């Protein structure tokens, strides 16, 4: 087994022991119960919001919190003392963050099909989920690296949500006019939400999808190269 696989196995094992995976499963079960109580059309319109919550919102919160937990337990120092590359540590963190998103996507997709007979292009959804989870994991890790302590991280996450996530949710609920959507493309949350919408409603790919994918990939790779990789070890060790 290579190092990434070993790290990933450890991350997933810990997500079970630390009750992160069971809680994520429980959230998905709540979505399924809601699907059981509503019509197919209502399910199709609300499912992207559930996906957005699990893929984007949960990625950013969980990766930041788990980083702080590892820092608090000191385990990250022990991991640095292993004969593995920093790249491998970070890639494993990204994949494990996506693992929780996949778990949620699978449950939502299967329940939509079984309960309401709704199906869509699953490969396209998978691609959108990977892109959105990557961008939001990168943002979560970057915020955690710049946070002075856990309270400061919570403050940064709250600010992020206030600026980016809340307008996205308002837009989804038609509380913000479509005329302002162009400004919302600055928000990675909006891009993720748009991709989930397009995947579930099987809308054809247009410039909005391309822009959302490119923008999120730009965020993910940009933050990885210029923030996470160069700062991860130094900022973690500094305390």
């Amino acid at each position, binding site marked *: 087994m290579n190092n990434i696989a*070993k790290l990933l196995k450890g991350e997933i094992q810990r997500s079970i*022991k*630390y009750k992160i995976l069971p809680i994520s499963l429980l959230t998905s079960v709540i979505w399924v119960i809601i699907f059981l109580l509503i019509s197919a059309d209502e399910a199709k319109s609300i499912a992207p919001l559930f996906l957005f919550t699990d893929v984007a919102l949960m990625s950013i919160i969980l990766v930041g919190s788990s980083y702080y937990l590892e820092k608090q337990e000191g385990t990250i120092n*022990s991991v640095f*003392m292993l*004969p593995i590359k920093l790249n491998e540590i970070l890639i494993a963190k990204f994949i494990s963050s996506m693992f929780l998103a996949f778990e949620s996507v699978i449950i939502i997709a299967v329940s939509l099909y079984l309960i309401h007979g709704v199906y869509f292009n699953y490969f396209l959804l998978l691609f959108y989920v990977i892109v959105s989870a990557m961008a939001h994991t990168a943002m979560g890790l970057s915020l955690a690296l710049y946070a002075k302590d856990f309270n400061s991280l919570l403050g940064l996450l709250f600010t992020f949500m206030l600026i980016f996530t809340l307008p996205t949710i308002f837009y989804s609920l038609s509380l913000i006019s479509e005329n302002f959507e162009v400004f919302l493309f600055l928000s990675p949350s909006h891009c993720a939400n748009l991709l989930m919408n397009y995947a579930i409603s099987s809308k054809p790919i247009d410039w909005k999808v391309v822009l959302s994918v490119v923008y999120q990939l730009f965020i993910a790779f940009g933050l990885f190269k210029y923030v996470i990789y160069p700062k991860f070890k130094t900022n973690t060790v500094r305390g």
Partner: protein
Amino acid sequence: MQNAFTIEDLSYRYPSKDTDVIKGITFNVKQGEIFGFLGPSGAGKSTTQKLMIKLLNDYRGNIKYFDRDLKKINESYYEEIGVGFEMPVHFGKLTGLENMKYFSSFYKNKADIKNLMEKVGLWEFRDVLVSQYSKGMKVRLNFVRAMLNNPRVLFLDEVTNGLDPKNAMIIKKMIYEFKKDGGTVFLTTHLMNDVEQLCDQVAFCVDGKLYEIATPRDLKLKYGKKEVTVEYHENNNILTRDFELNDLGFNDDFQTLLKSNRLETIHSGETTMEDIFIKVTGEVIHE
């Protein structure tokens, strides 16, 4: 004997600070020796260790590991060194054995986990969650973690801090055995008892500079009080008198005292490492 580490004019400044934390220090750690790195809190001990274990980079000066530039050695370095942190470094929701198996799985050269855990008295607690371990048990598990890859060099930070005398002795015995098998140890501590019992050479670090590098014996000779204290009976009282150690055999007063009084005790004025620590670090701080 070859140098395990050759440190030349090492300086380091944290990115957010205006001044250097480490200020041009130079020292060697010989292969097979136990090197004690001592100093008060905030002296730069931990930073020096972080530089030597590649947790921090961007230093000035040179660190050579067995004559190789440390900056040019990749992650394979961690196959050869073991690091025992002072703070707990284990997953609390995993058992002691699960933690050890996880970390061990990354090494090519794997030590016998059962043997190590048995030696430090943790094998019977292998299936207990680390979060339920006492402080002393966590310290012992840290030591096992450091030994998982049969390291060539061991870095230990306050290795017996928080241990009861029995367990502290077990760990010290294991360190001594490690040394006997050819291992090199870099020991950071403020526990002078450990230093006296273990170290072949010690260095005092104060405010990012080194002030003394010598063997504990040489330090004692340098800083020791060269005198003898005698407690003796006189007129139903116990009195004390000090004599110069030099030319004691020719000291008439001492000879007379021995002949004419009943002695209670007689001690050479040996200075402890604790006294030397306070003297060296105190002197420097108040300069």
